[in-house]
């Protein structure tokens, strides 16, 4: 079993602040550490800043007119700031973006192959991994020749995941992998995450709304709210926390609530008090 305390830190985010457009302050000092070989979940509501955090790590903020104005991010002890995203991929850190972002006009297979863009280990190895991805996602094998723009939402999510796997990364930043996926597929995706994590030792940092699943598969979690980390700890511990239970898992003291019975009255979250 993975033990966060005993492995080295792969990624260290230290008190970062992110501003969009020079005016909108989105992250107000976020710190987190990702241990090597683990699955770390980044949880939090809409607009909490999960995506922003991930983009700050993979240096994709520039193209959105955002910038890290404070704090540092180090990957394997090396500062990320100033490196371009491509070299980060080459160093083993790849992001699966929120909202899929497939290359619409490329076929599914071409999409997957672009994932191997930075690889230098020859086409045979790439073909092998392609087969591996197809084994993980058989649906993609069926649709390998269709243009990605015409595949369904779920299929596009698979393409995006598969594409990241194709780069043989050391660490994957996964942004909302479960969004829009059918339940059994969500499970399947997380199973794949787990398999890849255990089988290939890939480290995951995943932003997820589906707290329930995320906390089942993750080793540790951070809860982000309003640009700040409000809670963190081992996944198991978080799942037992009453607030997390109520607000993120939808359970009350009597067990699962029905969505029909939700009232507009709500308790205030304790950490806001």
């Amino acid at each position, binding site marked *: 079993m993975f033990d966060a305390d005993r492995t080295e830190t792969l990624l260290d985010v230290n008190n970062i602040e992110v501003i*969009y457009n020079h005016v*909108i302050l989105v992250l107000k000092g976020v710190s987190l550490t990702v241990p090597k070989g683990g699955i770390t979940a980044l*949880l*939090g*509501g*809409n*607009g*909490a800043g999960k995506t922003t955090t991930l983009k700050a790590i993979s240096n994709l903020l520039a193209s959105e007119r955002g910038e890290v104005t404070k704090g540092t991010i180090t990957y394997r002890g090396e500062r990320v700031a100033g490196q371009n995203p491509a070299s980060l991929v080459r160093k083993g850190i790849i992001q699966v973006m*929120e*909202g899929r972002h497939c290359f619409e006009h490329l076929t599914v297979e071409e999409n997957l192959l672009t994932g191997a863009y930075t690889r230098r280990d020859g086409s045979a190895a790439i073909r092998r991994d392609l087969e591996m991805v197809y084994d993980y996602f058989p*649906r993609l094998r069926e649709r390998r020749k*269709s243009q990605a723009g*015409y*595949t*369904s*939402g*779920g*299929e596009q*999510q698979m393409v995006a995941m598969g594409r990241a796997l194709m780069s043989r990364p050391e660490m994957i930043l996964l942004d*909302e992998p479960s*969004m*829009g*996926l*059918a*339940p*059994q*597929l*969500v*499970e399947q995706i997380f199973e794949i995450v787990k398999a890849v994590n255990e089988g290939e030792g890939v480290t995951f940092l995943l932003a997820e*709304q*589906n*707290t*329930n699943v995320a906390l089942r598969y993750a080793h540790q979690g951070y809860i982000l709210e309003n640009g700040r980390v409000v809670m963190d700890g081992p996944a198991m511990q978080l799942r037992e926390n009453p607030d997390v239970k109520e*607000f*993120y*898992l*939808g359970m009350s003291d009597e067990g*699962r*609530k*029905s*969505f*029909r019975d*939700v009232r*507009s009255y709500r308790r205030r979250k304790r950490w806001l008090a």
Partner: protein
Amino acid sequence: MMQAHEGYVTDDGRQIGGTVMELKNITLRFGGVVAIKDISFDIRQGEIRAIIGPNGAGKSSMLNVISGFYNPQEGEVWFKGYRRGPMKPYQVARLGIARTFQNIALFDGMSVLDNIMTGRLNKMKAGFLSQAMWWGAAEREENENREAVEKIIDFLEIQNIRKTPVGRLPYGLKKRVELARALAAEPQLLLLDEPMAGMNVEEKEDMSRFILDVNDEFGTTICLIEHDMGVVMDLSDRVVVMDYGRKIGDGTPDQVRSNQDVIDAYLGVAHD
């Protein structure tokens, strides 16, 4: 005319009326891909109807057929007792069908308020000159509709972002604005394509409440696609299950949940 269905009464005592929309033997193809294969089902007045199914099953395509974006190669679409011929989407909208989209389709360059106001465009009839002069009908209508929109804004609790350009909003709020836009049209039939994707439980609870309230207060018929089984089972009155373009189940949540085909194709082992 199609035959009128009797309504029914739900467990929690709501009266469901006759058939509003009926789809008969719909088949939709894209080149070689058959997205929908000979599917029929109906939606009744006042009910919450869910469509579920694995990814790529053809659910969104089905919604697109209903909202007139795709014209099926085969089959008939009946709405409020009339067979609907091939129509442009904007004509369908005028019949009283509004929807939200799976991949949010808001107008990014406009403010939240303007986005929601677009929902009311079929309610505004001021002539060109009146608009150009900002005089008479144009101004009056603008203010009247603004009032209606403000009610929706209050209802969905998005007052504080009224003037924000939607491009800057986080995902969940965008979904809410999209719902607001659809509601602004005061539709008879509201189509929701994965309204809760990308939300956490708290937000799903909010969204559920909105959907229920819309259904309750305005009597709006709702047809929704959703992958969160908790939500689907809790909210909907009847559920259609699709797989590979075919219908594999149709009935109350309980019936569907226990249907072996559905379990195999979609639900998998139940997790709670």
